């Protein structure tokens, strides 16, 4: 598959997943606002929701930062590096033992 086609396919899949997710989230967030406004007792729901939103916001920022640093460009690179380094540790240890 050509790079151009893959690029557009990714965008379409991205939109197909994100659009309902954003709509669903907005709908539920509206629910939360209505609960808080309409019922004083409902305000306690804010605590767990705010906990979740803070954690999620942090992870969105982290995900964007990671992507900007190129972590998703060579997906299998870190795995190869880790494996090669471990093999070298083993080799060094064997050489030390022989000495």
């Amino acid at each position, binding site marked *: 598959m050509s790079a151009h086609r893959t690029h557009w396919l990714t965008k379409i899949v991205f939109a197909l997943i994100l659009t309902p997710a954003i709509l669903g989230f907005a709908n*539920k967030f509206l629910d939360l606002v209505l609960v808080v406004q309409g019922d004083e007792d409902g305000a306690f729901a804010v605590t*767990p*929701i705010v*906990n979740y939103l803070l954690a999620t916001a942090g992870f969105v920022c982290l995900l964007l930062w990671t992507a900007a640093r190129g972590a998703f460009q060579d997906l299998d690179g870190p*795995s190869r*590096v*880790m494996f090669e380094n*471990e093999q070298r540790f083993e080799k060094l*240890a064997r050489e030390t033992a022989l000495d």
Partner: protein
Amino acid sequence: MTSATNSSIDGQQCPRHEDLVEDRLVLWYFVAALTFMTISMLAGILMGLQLLRHNPLPAIEVLSPGRWRMVHTNAIAYGFLANAFLGIMHWVIPRLTLRPVLSNPLSYLIFFAWQAVVLATAVGILFGQAQGVEWGETPVWIDPFALLGLLLVAINFGAPIINAPGPLYVTLWYYLAALVWTFLTYAMGNLLPEYFVCGSSAGAVGGLFIHDLVGLFVTPLGWGMMYYFVPILLKRPMWSHGLSLVGFWGLAFFYPLQGIHHFLYTPIPMFLQYGAVLSTIALEFVVLTVIVNFVGTLYGTGDLVLRNLPLRYFYTGILFYFLTCLQCALQVTLTFQALIHFTDWVVGHAHMVMFGVFSLWQLGVMTYLVPRILKTEWYNPKWCEWHYWASSGGLLVMASDLILGGLFQGWSWAALQPWDASIHLSIPFWSVRLVAGLVMFAAQILFVVNFYLTWRKSTRSFSVTVPATGAAPAFGQ
């Protein structure tokens, strides 16, 4: 190509293991972990006897069953799991980042401080100072010290991870997240309900805390560990590092909302309960990506699982993890919950997660690392095999028994039978659970004895011959 890749190719840049890892500290953490595991399992057995009306320590307030039960859960979470994870991180993080931890003296300070925190928690619970939060019973006066300890852990391990070059390996993502999550989760669960919120809100936070303790402390440290050790033992990289990142980010986004599924059918607004149910079911798909990745990595070398004991531990844990998550996706539905809530099904589920997955993984890592650190074979490798079969077999029997017993209890309550009837029908299940627990306990004692004799053997033979870490025998090759 990243700079980390360059460092792996250029032989001159690879530091020696001895310059990176403080082996002695890893061993000390293992000793502490096994000590607390013994205490925890002893407490579990006492509780099991109490359920069968054979409490061997009646009329002693300090040793009353309710307090022993809290010692059982706290010692396993903060004594065994946390200590073993800390020891393993002292091995994994420096080798992955090619950098030592921030400070070795700080590492030793954390070790002693953490043992003091866990011991003080146990003593505080026994003397009736438990905080009214499940899994967060640590007396309130210990919380600031525990938080300070977790902060120091995050700084000590975070420094080499943040300074590591290039895109991070997935283990480091999990570890980095766990360092932040554990501190925040502990603070949320122990401080919010105590000082800031009350009533249903505190209940909701308690639910988040219970589940986040498993999902944001134990799970990332456990999977991070697996992504490191499995490729090493299989002698091949992970099938797909991309898929492993899907697992990580999926955990990050789906897990934090799940905890409220512990409080279905409560005054907590239904949209929050539905959100918890949906995110729990969604996480099952994320779990599937992780399982597929590990099965894909194993593909073609499945016989190694039969021959290599640590690998067998790892893949047994992975199987239990799949089962437990599948169970979780089903049991959080409102229909299922109506039957199993408050029953022993939940206890069986909890044992399958804590022992069947994470404890087995840690015991597998210990089985692999102890001979490498002590530079000698296990005193008795056959005892290691017995340890595996008795631990995993005992757990299988215990979890199945409790899950089945939970169904019978639920049906009894649903049929509006008297409470006594459900107690009566539970006795055979509790008897089987006690026997399974005794088998598991005997297995751990055998492992501890084997560990001690191996250590003694290593100190005796050290002056005669010193095998290389890389050439460490048994189970790892």
